[in-house]
């Protein structure tokens, strides 16, 4: 193993993930001070937290309380490797998900004299860098400091080592998943034949949902103490699972069972070795695996009958719409758009299920407003921002084609609004099903959601055109420059609030209708008047944003590649 090669590869991988992009992007720039600041900051913060907790412990005079805290700290130290494994898995998997669709993937440079062991180790280490390592740095420095005050230094040092080893185990597992995923994906593509496009879309959505459900179950609204307790208890019960051996080792060490400590430590090292061996073997076999091509049709060309033409679209506009629809169902980095509405429904559902079967009326009203207004509006804002930049480096086709600004804006806006209204409809239906509101409230909610989606889609499209980022750099195409993404969010928030403002009193009355907080009276016709004002604001904003979008599109087409 050439360690210099490993470090060089890690450096390349990490650089690929943190390219800092300006408007002039011909040169790679990175701000090292910012990168290291996160780790140094985490370390300092950990020291401060440890010092604060340690001093608090030293100041306690009650011996029983001291003993209780010591037991709690020992328990925490013992559970840390398993908790690190859990967050390590989540964050390294997230990092992999973010790389989906990267055109320039960090492929092993197979023509260079680099062994698969070096490549695999570099990939595993690079996966750990970033959020997982920042969290681990914070935890390690606070544990070491606290252990000094609590007189638990040997256990603290052992816990820190086990924590780092757990993170390494998590990253190795992600590496194995990554290779297997490529292999399984290729095999499914081959087996699915013409259905591969749909199998891939649905498969991606399902895997995203499973991942997010696990993530939210672990971290959303869960008390840290409850997590520590369940992990500590679970470790003892499930000692035969190799991933928990590091925790079991620490547990044995803390209770002075030296033989068990030695055995589980050896077993943990053996398991880590096995995982690394498996990752290397899988990389050797599938690391350069080329997925088979997807055959969509058998080559018989049938021009499509013009449904879009009958809806008032020119052949050019219909062509752009059809192309975008295919892009969002076939490009993996765009598929995640479809996950948003599903996550929006899952999150409150998980929360509601934790709270038991009875839903308080305040929560029910809030859930109705949340589901009706938010997913469709967010879909409009996100899609609008990405729509132009999603052309990527193929944008020259738009530049070189006889596409006018008007047609471009019409085609792109129609796509955004079509999907936003579809999501609004589905989520409104889910909201009605879950919260059972009155017909009046349901209709007002839906119409207001449309009033929000229509202008915000146009504003976001304008920002998306002005800030379009056509580069397809790793880890994945960004599609909109951050500054324009921020402007988009701010403008949409202000305009969204302005549109919602007339209906806010009605909303407050609905949410708190059964509580004593409601002291003001609104006439029955109030929501209709408010809705009319909202609609008027939406129409004016849409008209103005459309004008700006046209000018921006004209400017984009005129400037083309400059």
């Amino acid at each position, binding site marked *: 193993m050439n360690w210099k090669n490993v470090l060089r590869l890690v450096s390349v991988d990490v650089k690929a993930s943190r390219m800092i992009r300006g408007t002039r992007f011909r040169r790679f720039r990175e701000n090292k001070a910012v990168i290291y600041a996160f780790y140094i900051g985490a370390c300092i913060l950990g020291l401060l937290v440890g010092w604060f907790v340690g001093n608090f412990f030293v100041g306690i005079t009650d011996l029983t309380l001291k003993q209780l805290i010591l037991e709690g700290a020992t328990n925490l130290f013992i559970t840390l490797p398993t908790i690190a494994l859990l967050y390590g898995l989540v964050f390294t998997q997230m990092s992999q998900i973010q790389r989906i669709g990267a055109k320039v993937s960090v492929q092993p440079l197979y023509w260079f004299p680099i062994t698969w062991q070096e490549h695999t180790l570099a990939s595993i280490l690079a996966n750990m860098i970033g959020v997982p390592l920042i969290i681990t740095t914070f935890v390690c420095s606070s544990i070491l400091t606290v252990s000094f005050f609590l007189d638990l230094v040997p256990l603290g040092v052992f816990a820190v080592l086990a924590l780092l080893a757990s993170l390494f185990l998590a990253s190795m597992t992600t590496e194995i998943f990554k290779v297997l995923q490529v292999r399984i994906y290729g095999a499914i593509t081959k087996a699915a034949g013409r259905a591969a496009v749909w199998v891939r879309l649905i498969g991606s959505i399902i895997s995203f949902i499973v991942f997010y459900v696990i993530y939210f179950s672990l971290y959303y609204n869960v008390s840290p103490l409850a997590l520590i307790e369940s992990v500590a208890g679970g470790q003892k019960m499930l000692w035969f699972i190799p991933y928990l051996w590091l925790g079991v080792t620490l547990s044995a060490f803390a209770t002075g069972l030296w033989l068990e400590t030695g055995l589980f430590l050896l077993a943990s090292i053996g398991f880590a070795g096995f995982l690394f061996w498996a990752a290397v073997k899988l990389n050797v076999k599938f690391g350069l695996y080329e997925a*088979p*091509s*997807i*055959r*969509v*049709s*058998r*080559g018989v*060309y*049938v*021009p*499509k009958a013009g449904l879009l033409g009958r809806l008032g679209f*020119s*052949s*050019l506009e*219909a*062509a*752009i719409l*059809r*192309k975008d629809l*295919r*892009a969002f169902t*076939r*490009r993996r980095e765009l598929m995640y758009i479809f996950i948003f509405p599903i996550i929006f429904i899952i999150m409150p559902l998980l929360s509601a299920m934790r709270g038991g079967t009875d839903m308080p009326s305040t929560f029910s009203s809030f859930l109705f407003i949340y589901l009706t207004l938010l997913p469709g509006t967010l879909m409009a804002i996100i899609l609008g921002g990405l729509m132009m930049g999603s052309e*990527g*480096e*193929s944008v*020259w*086709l738009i*530049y*070189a*084609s*006889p*596409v*006018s600004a008007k047609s471009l804006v019409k085609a792109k806006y129609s796509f955004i609004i079509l999907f936003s209204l579809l999501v609004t409809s589905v989520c409104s239906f889910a909201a009605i099903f879950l919260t059972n509101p009155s017909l009046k409230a349901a209709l007002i909610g839906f119409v207001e959601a449309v009033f929000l989606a229509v202008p915000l889609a146009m504003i976001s499209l304008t920002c998306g055109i002005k800030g379009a980022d056509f580069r397809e750099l790793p880890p994945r195409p960004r599609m909109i420059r951050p500054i324009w993404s921020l402007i988009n969010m701010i403008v949409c928030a202000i305009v969204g609030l302005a549109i919602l403002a007339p209906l806010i009193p009605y909303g407050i009355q609905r949410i708190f209708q059964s509580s004593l907080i409601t002291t003001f009276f609104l006439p029955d016709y109030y929501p209709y008047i408010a809705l009319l004002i909202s609609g008027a604001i939406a129409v004016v904003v849409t008209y103005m944003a459309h004008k700006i979008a046209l000018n921006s599109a004209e400017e984009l*087409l*005129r*400037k*083309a*590649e*400059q």
Partner: protein
Amino acid sequence: MKVMTLTRLPVVKLSGVSKRYGDVTAVDYLDLEVKRGEIFGLLGPNGSGKSTTLKMILGLVKPDSGSVNVLGINVEDDPVAVKRKIGYVPESPRIYEFLTALEFLDFTGDVYGMSPEEKKKRIEEFVRALDLEGREGDIISSYSEGMKQKVVIISALLHKPELLLLDEPLSGLDPKSARIIKDLLRELASQGVTTIMSTHILEIAQAMCDRIGIMYGGRLLALGTMKELRQKAKMPESGLEDIFLKLTGTSDVKPVVEALMK
């Protein structure tokens, strides 16, 4: 009479066109006229301004000074009308790789407003001619570079453009396909289609082009038929490669090779 006047008009006319990128002058006061039915070769070393010139003709790049007229239309006045009449193959093109070749060509046909019948006929003919049969229903991302190039060339020719702007069109093509494209361009030229082609393959330029323009440092160093270029370079028996190297001042490559061999 009107038709006669039209055919005499240059299809492309660049008058005093310049383009700078920061400190770099990509094109420096270029005057050029290309006639109807002509195959015009634009040669020059890397960075000499060929691609920028092609992009200015298409309206993708706005000149800092001068004017570009294509088929009697000022490109800046009505870029969409100009683009409708042009077929373009860029250097190392990126196309929608998530579409199949058929879907991509269908998209191109729709963008140029072709009728479904015409689209179907033309797509089938081109797919067959360029040996894409059997793979035309596959997603383009699985194609080789040569196959992608074929798809781009078909998309440029599909709508029967009056002017073809081709930037290294034959790179990556197999010999049969390259031959088909060369013969097709000659046939199209005889029907009045004008081609402006940028290439580094001097044999192709010599064999195909009616006139050749040699660019260097953004300027047009020489312009004319092969005979005229030989006269200008005072090399009556030489091929294009020697003339090119002499005119661009890069003929003395021997010391470079010797230095590299040390």
